[in-house]
């Protein structure tokens, strides 16, 4: 089963997306800040991370940098799922070899799950 880690600090948004992921038979887990996301990555080894950028403790940019710096996680697929849509931000994270960039307010959970499915089809 494909393991998806959802790093999102808004518990409500997280719960909605988590439910849709589980419904589509993904093995899913949630982290509510950047530091927690990195910890889970180390112990659980997810196949994909859905990563928010504005998060407490460690923001998404730091998480990405840490992931890519470690040989264990440098190849882990990441879809950035943020409400920051400015070109400046997208350019900044695209340097980290990400699998996609989705703007939360422009995408429904169903669309997010569809995107995840195409990655593992």
């Amino acid at each position, binding site marked *: 089963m494909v393991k998806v880690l959802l790093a999102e*600090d*808004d518990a*409500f*948004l997280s719960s*909605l*997306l988590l*439910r849709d992921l589980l*419904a589509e038979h993904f093995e899913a887990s949630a982290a509510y800040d950047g530091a927690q996301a990195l910890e889970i990555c180390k112990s659980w080894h997810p196949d994909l991370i859905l990563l928010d950028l*504005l*998060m*407490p*403790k460690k*923001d998404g940019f730091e998480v990405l940098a840490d992931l890519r710096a470690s040989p264990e996680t440098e190849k882990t697929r990441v879809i950035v799922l943020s*409400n*920051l849509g400015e070109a400046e931000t997208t350019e900044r994270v695209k340097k980290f070899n990400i699998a996609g960039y989705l703007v*939360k*307010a422009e995408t*429904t*959970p*169903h669309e997010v799950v569809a995107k995840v499915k195409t990655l593992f089809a």
Partner: protein
Amino acid sequence: MKDVSRTVEADEFRPLRAAHRFFSIRVKGAYVIVLTMLPIMAAGYAIAYLYWTPGDLSTAVLGVLSERLFIGGFSTRVGYLVLAVLFVAAWFIGFFAIDYFFAQPLRSLTVWFRQARSSEFTNVPVMPTRRQDEIGELTHLVSASVASFLKTKEQNTVLLQEKSLFMTIAAHQLRTPLTGLLWSIDSLLDPATTDDARQKLMIDIDGMLKRMRLIVNHILASANVEGGKFGYVFEQIDIVPVIERLIEEFKPVSDDHAVSVRFEASDGIFPIYADTERITLALFDLISNAIDYTPRGGTVTISVAPQNDRLEIAVADTGMGISESEIPLLFTKFYRSERARHVRPDGSGLGLFLVKDVVSSHGSDMSVTSKEGVGSRFSFFLNSKKPH
């Protein structure tokens, strides 16, 4: 279009125009030249008249003139010729003197102004004159106007940047609950969603709409800050129930954060003057900050204590505290400390800015005492007399 027709005209009559410009157009002062030279010219005409029509009067006047002008050694005709040349020379000298002293500075002022304008006043060369007279005054005035224009322009640029930053932040603040609403609707439309889940979603939607309302109120209040006390309605109220209601409202949040909220109020009613809506917003922000920046298990204490004819309102927490260097920056628009960013990454940096504005409109300063790692205390006063 105007400029084009002017160019055509200039091309067609170039020689004529050049002469015209040289003698008159360059300065309105040419009229001055004509006027000042009129008496001299009149004298010239008089002499010519006397010269060509000899008689008793002519002889007498010319005799006096030739004596006075020490040209007696020449024949009178040569003397007249010299006089005529002198008049013409005086006319030219007068013309060029006036041109030099009045027209030239105006021309250089024009050149200076044109240069300044060609760079949209961003590169203004040194002022062309140090004269103390009318022209100097005019130059100074123009230069001062350019300076004040530049300043206004700069202020406008800053204001525009601030407005655009404000818009960006406001939009981002709204985006989070907006996403929540969109995702909730997506879920509601999903036939697989159970009735229980639907019921729960409705409650969440209600919460998000309230959050959006709060953000909109903040945006409106911040947009009004420059307007001073405009729109404030002061009424005599008891602040205690207002705070109690807020604490009640925060209950789910403080429970979620495992932060206990205490309220300390002295007995008896102490009526103060306040704009209820705005002071509620300010208190909301202070309490919300206190809860957010206090670690689990901490305490937020809100206290109300009379001091003479004023009432001190304080919100104290056992949170992470604020460093001394950050305290003066706390109330600046959009300011967010590094650590605050870590705890609440999507804050607007408008809350405390707004709080300070509301409090100062109530005639009080904001006091902050804080110790890093121990906690912070924000306090202000409300008056029992109507603020003016």
